[in-house]
């Protein structure tokens, strides 16, 4: 079974889904058809050019009428074209219809971050899938166009704000593959000032680089590993406190791209989040909000509901994570406020059992 799926070649990355061999075999068919045509055309061109180079005493001969030849090369390529079209369409339809036993994973794309939501409600920034299990991605964008692309799977689909798009694949090989965004989605002008080290860490472009930094990884694992991983996501690791776990999630959810957490530091795109919990927040449009647990949860779920005054230019994406993960982040934000201790305790007692 495994032998069918090839390693990377000069032209193609490795094959990690059932769709890959299908796409590649058509790709190579077209490749060899193209090579034959290219060699025939350029070969004839070079041969004629040498054979009929200008020589003294030799004149050109005017061409006659060759309707049969013209009709031959006008219509005979249709056979090859029909073959390519037909195979391509069959493959495309196969890619468009997910098998009935697919599991659904929601994909939330936002500038410049991926979020994957599993059937149990847990979310994370990298996608884990069980091998030999058809997976259907139901994708939405919160801001501009994005496109989900995994070269090793040979799948790609644009993600369009205001509608859902979907794709499916059946992963076949365990391993880690890159996920790219292939629909141009811009960059933050402010990040031009960042150092080279901040834009690219260990050879991986960061989210602060904009479109090209909207990178993630696909982990193809065994079903047992996948089950364990997905359940772990919504259980606080035993060796961590709630604020510690929240700090991890804060980092992996892409929050630091817009928020600083050093007390007194100048804010970036979004507010400085140190010393927020427990302090009254001035709201856009007047009034204040007490930054209690409910306000914090709501600010994560519906960031546009109560905007802190002056932060109207950039819109924060709504956080779709599991409520346990959400509370952990609230606990973390409370822990970096000198008036946040009651909220930390509230979270701890809430999830005590």
């Amino acid at each position, binding site marked *: 079974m495994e032998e069918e799926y090839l390693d990377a070649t000069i032209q193609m990355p490795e094959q990690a889904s059932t769709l890959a061999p299908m*796409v590649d075999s058509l790709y190579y068919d077209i490749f060899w058809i193209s090579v034959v045509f290219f060699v025939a055309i350029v070969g004839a061109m070079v041969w004629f050019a040498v054979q009929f180079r200008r020589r003294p005493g030799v004149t050109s001969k005017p061409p006659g009428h060759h309707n049969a030849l013209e009709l031959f090369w006008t219509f005979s390529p249709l056979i090859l074209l029909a073959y390519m079209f037909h195979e391509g369409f069959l493959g495309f339809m196969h890619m468009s219809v997910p098998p009935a036993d697919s599991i659904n994973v929601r994909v939330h794309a936002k500038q410049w971050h991926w979020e994957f939501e599993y059937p149990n409600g847990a979310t994370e920034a990298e996608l884990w899938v069980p091998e030999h299990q058809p997976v259907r991605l139901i994708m939405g964008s919160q801001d501009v166009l994005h496109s989900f692309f995994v070269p090793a799977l040979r799948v790609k689909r644009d993600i369009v704000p205001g509608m859902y798009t979907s794709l499916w694949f059946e992963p076949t090989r365990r391993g880690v593959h890159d996920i790219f965004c292939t629909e141009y989605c811009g960059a*933050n002008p402010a990040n031009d000032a960042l150092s080279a080290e901040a834009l690219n860490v260990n050879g991986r472009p960061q989210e602060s680089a904009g479109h*090209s930094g909207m990178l993630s990884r696909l982990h193809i694992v065994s079903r047992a590993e996948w089950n364990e991983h997905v359940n772990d996501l919504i259980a606080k690791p035993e060796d961590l406190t709630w604020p510690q776990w929240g700090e991890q999630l804060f980092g992996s959810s892409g929050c630091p791209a817009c928020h600083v957490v050093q007390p007194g530091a100048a804010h970036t795109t979004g507010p400085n989040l140190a010393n927020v919990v427990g302090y009254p927040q001035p709201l856009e449009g007047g009034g204040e909000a007490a930054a209690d647990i409910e306000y914090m949860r709501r600010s994560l779920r519906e960031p546009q509901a109560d905007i802190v005054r002056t932060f109207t230019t950039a819109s924060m994406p709504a956080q779709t994570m599991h409520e346990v993960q959400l509370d952990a982040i609230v606990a973390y934000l409370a822990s970096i406020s000198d008036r946040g201790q009651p909220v930390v305790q509230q979270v701890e007692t809430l999830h005590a059992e």
Partner: protein
Amino acid sequence: MTVKATAHHPAAHGEHAHSDVDYLHEKTTVLSWIVTLDHKRLGILYLASTLLMFFIGGIFALLVRTELLLPGRTIMGPHEYNQAFSLHGAIMVFLFIIPSIPGALGNFFLPIMLGAKDVAFPRLNLLSYYIYVLGAAVAIFSLIDGAVDTGWTFYTPYSQTTSASVIAMTLAAFILGFSSILTGVNFIATVHKLRAPGLHWKRLPLFVWGTYATAVIQVLATPVLAITLLLLMMEKVLSVGIFDPRLGGDPVLFQHFFWFYSHPAVYIMILPGMAIVNEIIATFSRRKIFGYMFVAMSSVALALLGFLVWGHHMFVAGMSEYATMVFSALTFLVAIPSGVKVFNWTATLYNGSISFQSPMLYGLGFIVLFTIGGLTGLFLGTLSVDVHLHDTYFVVAHFHYVMVGGTVIGFVGGLHYWWPKMTGKLYDERLAKIAFMLVFTGFNMTFLTQFVLGSQGMPRRYYDYLDHFQPLHGFSSAGSYVLGLGFMIMAVMFAMSLFRGKKSPPNPWGSAGFEWATSSPPIMHNFHHTPVIDRGPYDYHLATEEELWDGFPEELEASAHDAPAHVSKLGRDVSDEVSTKRAVVEGVAPSASDESAGANEGEESSDEGSESDHDGDQDEDGDDEEASDESKKPSDEEE
């Protein structure tokens, strides 16, 4: 073709007694240039403007490639990079490729090839140029105003959220569209109404066919762009919800609108390039283009099919599967007329008499590069394979093979081919060949590499990339420097030609094309008298030795008289033909005025000659074009 006198010739001659002066010297004030109604001068103005834009767009291209030389930050930040590639695309497409061939070479040669004095509406032509200048000025303003970072496609909703200069740039594209439409209208009218007597549609030069097909697309498709960009501006300024989902709009609708223009625009770009290649291949093979009517009709077919395939830019954009099916099938049909052209060009070489002067190198280079560009289109038209390749470097490489390997190589080939006619100067053939080799090599280094990058999964419009893509990116960037060097040498070569090039004879390549029948540079009214066309532009077997003479008219005359047993370049004893021909022409007034023109040219050529004597470098290959019996030898050496 015969430049025969028409019946009412003597009167006409009286009216244009001053018209022996070429168009460059008719009037030389600045004002005479900026308000000129002459299609040739407007062609030169377009040429200078579009070449300037090509230079600016090229600088952005080199900045982009330099940033991509190494992973991580190389010379600029991510937003600056996004601006650089957006400006590269927008400037190259809207300000260079679309106006370059129709505006510069089309304006200059379409009327001459038709035997007309000018285009049908000279004032409209001038207006079209100034609309272009206005559009360019707005585009430059947008650049200073805080350049666009949307890509040249202005996809919504990103273009609605980013900086305000999107309005300036789309306004520029909107304005430039009108310039394009006016040029198109003008060309259609000119081709229909101003053909010389005897120039029926089956004798039309293929350059005219191609430009005509282009004009039809310009007139029909460009208004859609105007509407689209206007809607975009309305949404951005007035918040009318059309494309932005937050206002109830549909982003995919923008893509449909945009590509409904921009796919036909691809044919606005490539058809004129193909049109030039027809002329080059015919001239340097001394043979009529094989399957002339099939080639002419394939241009029309491409123009029409071009309107039906816009959806192939959107196979993964969230369209109905059945719509993708239709668009994929129609897209494959484009391969048919494209293939017909390539097959016929190749067949034209068969039984030809082929010389390898610089324009022909570009002509043959075009066939190679366009074949690659066309064949790689098959991968992208195939639905399931396109899913993998869409929006990767494979697409970037594919359209650069068509747009640069096709259109730009065709344009540059046409510039080499017609340069002696436009400027009246010869250029250094050896430098031209060096530049060609660098351009051809550099281009392939840059873009052949990108096919592999793309099929390996490297997405386009990326500021930064994963380490394992670096070797290919590095090689591609190195290629772009070779390409840039080639264009720089070419620029130097043309500049040298302008300032110290030898005077060109009327027909340096020995072409049977109509435009070579007038002097180099052409006189103000192109021909002394409306020519009467009695053969096709590629009928080398019907053309007289005099028409194919690649020297100065007075030398032909001298050799015809002094050497009775004159042997032509074609190896035949043509003394009879020449004298017969001269007998035909004898007694009619054009030959009289030709002689006076010849005397005039003679004076100039002696001036030029004394200058170029100092320039030993040019002589070896210069012989190629020089008016002498030896002109056949250099092409043998090149083998």
